[in-house]
């Protein structure tokens, strides 16, 4: 945050020195052109890629449409929403799973990422190598993640069932097929990736904490735990906010891992997966898919609003 503040204050200061008398002059034509281009193009991209689809989604969520000609669009009021809440069996399990997902990321995955960051921030030998290893899952492509976890979880060939010796027996746990365990199996896969992401954020955050704070705490006789929780952690407030928001957003938009397991069915329903199911491909029901997307959007707006208000609020 400090860098942005200094960046915005320094150029006018320099301009003032260069020609203070011309301050009251209007912008020259090249200035205007530059302004229009610099502000206009991002605005246009933002409009086309974010605002227009969002508004269209909201409109379509109140319509029925078979996706063919525009004249087939018919208004249906709230019936898409009614259908989802009343008649669509995967919806409520999906809501529950999203909440479990959020709690798990917040209580397990994110603290694990913080722990990794704190450990790797010490001067351990090979710290860079560990960092790379933990960060690799964030960079892997989706099909590769699918293959890796298939190797871990497969009922007869998988690593877990073989190391516990239950593979090829009737007691073998069906990690992906048994709907009472598959959500947890997916959550472990999600943690594997989320923790690496959080670790990198906190590593950057820890590097940014002024060492003199720790020294001062040590001089005052604080233990390592006290130094971290009372001094270092609060000093990382900007990162903490980012991490909280990322965790919430990751939980809300979670979908890729369940999608590669079984496309988000049989115990792995998530709102994000239902949106894809209803909007993409042959099962396309535009009205219902849009309504699900709008519900997700409304829920997402809450943490986003809190985040933005805190970020901008703290600058004043």
């Amino acid at each position, binding site marked *: 945050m400090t860098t942005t503040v200094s960046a915005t204050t320094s150029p006018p200061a320099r301009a003032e020195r260069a020609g203070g008398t011309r301050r009251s002059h209007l912008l020259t034509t090249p200035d205007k052109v530059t302004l229009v281009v610099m502000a206009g193009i991002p605005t246009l991209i933002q409009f086309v890629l974010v605002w227009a689809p969002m508004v269209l989604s909201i409109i379509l969520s109140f319509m029925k449409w078979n996706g*063919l000609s525009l004249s087939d669009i018919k208004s249906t009021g709230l019936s898409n929403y009614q259908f989802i809440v009343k*008649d669509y069996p995967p919806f409520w399990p999906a809501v529950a799973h999203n909440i479990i997902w959020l709690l798990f990321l917040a209580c397990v995955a994110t603290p694990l990422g913080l722990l990794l960051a704190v450990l790797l921030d010490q001067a351990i030998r090979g710290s860079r190598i560990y960092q790379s290893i933990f960060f690799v899952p964030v960079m892997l492509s989706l099909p590769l993640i699918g293959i890796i976890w298939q190797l871990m979880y497969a009922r007869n060939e998988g690593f877990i069932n073989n190391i516990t010796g239950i593979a090829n027996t009737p007691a073998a746990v*069906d990690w992906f097929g048994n709907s009472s365990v598959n959500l947890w199996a997916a959550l472990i896969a999600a943690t594997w990736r989320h923790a690496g992401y959080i670790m990198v954020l906190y590593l950057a955050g820890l590097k940014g904490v002024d060492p003199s704070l720790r020294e001062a705490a040590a001089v005052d006789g604080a233990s390592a735990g006290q130094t971290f929780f009372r001094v270092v952690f609060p000093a990382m407030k900007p990162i903490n906010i980012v991490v909280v928001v990322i965790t919430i957003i990751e939980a809300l938009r979670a979908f890729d891992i369940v999608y*590669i397991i079984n496309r988000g069915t*049989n115990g792995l329903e998530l709102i994000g997966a239902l949106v894809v*199911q*209803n*909007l993409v491909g042959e099962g*396309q*029901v535009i009205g219902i898919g849009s309504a699900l997307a709008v519900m997700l959007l409304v829920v997402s707006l809450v943490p986003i609003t809190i985040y933005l208000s805190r970020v901008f609020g703290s600058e004043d």
Partner: protein
Amino acid sequence: MTNPLSATGFVPSRLTRRSLFALTGGVTLAGLAACTGTTTAPAASGSGAAAGGQTITVGSGASDDVPKRAYQAVFDAYAKKSGNVVKVNTVPHNDFQNNINSYLQGSPDMAFTWFAGYRMRYYAAKGLATPMDDAWAAVGSSFSDGLAKASTGDDGKKYLMPMYNYPWGFFYRKSVWSDKGYTVPTTFDALKTLCAKMKSDGLIPIAFADKDGWPAMGTFDYLNMRLNGYQFHTDLCAHKESWDQKKVKDVFDNWKALLPFQDPNALGATWQEAAKSLGDKKSGMYLLGSFVTQQFTDAAVLADIDFFPFPAMAMEGQDSVEAPIDGIMLSSKAKGSAGAMDLMKFLGTPGAEDTYYSIDNSNLPVVKGADLSKLTPLNKKCADTIAGAKHISQFFDRDALPAMASNVMIPALQAFVKDGTVDTANLEAQAKSLYATQ
């Protein structure tokens, strides 16, 4: 078609960059699809007979190597014979199927690969396909009644030229059956008795896999057709019948009697894994499409595989067979094109079928008079079963609204396989809402 999954549209790896974009972009894709407009000027290229020199474009979703080469060989043979030029645009099959709406409304090719069933009739009714009765008048006599019916739209016109199909039925290993002295059941009761015997012999009676959701539809289709008849099944799929009625409940009640004999770990397994359990002699039989044989790469195992049709139940004997048909349709762009119609005529000849089968022999030729001498004994048996059928169903995801199949039936059947319960009132409520959108 070497990848039968693609035809059913339930390929687990359907997640493309495109679909991810569609998630983030919300309805942009749909919006763009609509914006491409419906101004498809009919390519009135030829007025007279197909005298040669015309260009016929074909959009193909047959992107796997073997079917792609097979189609190319057929089109080459046609070009050589007629003097017309056939231009094929091949698109990866998942993309082709997922984008079919915008494709047909935008600037489609004159002909395109598609399949029989609800979606053929749907696009025909929406005016996005051109009837090919002229071609059928010339070659129609070489198709069975079941095929002719499956190629007919709601308006009674023909919209599809079938290229090949493959049946669903029970596959088993002959050696296992002769060792244990099992005989082919022809009634549902005999099937249940056989299953009980297999279970006591330590086998999984019926291999089963439903991780991907669609394979269980095969069991549903057969039970419904055998119990309530082909017509009821088709009407139910098209939602002309209610789901919330005793006939449908009976289907699930009968299925419940079969559930203990189906592999209890079905929900975590793919059809390939279930096929392996049959190949390894851990299961007694497997209800699937004949594409199951692709999994048996060992020639000795493959030669040991045999087939029998789904046993008879209350309403009908073994009149109906589930045999998805793939073929070629004409888009709205082919209106008035004598060349495109001429190509359809050619595709309905035994010569075209033989050319296709000479390259892709995992599917069955459908034209009477096609050279069957090259068929393996198993394929011959499959072909005979189809030829003897009075009705041919297309598999649930082709016979019904795709959204009904993928959004409603997959979760419902998976839940049923898990605990044996199904809420038919809810199925009806969902069907009502989805079909009203169309």
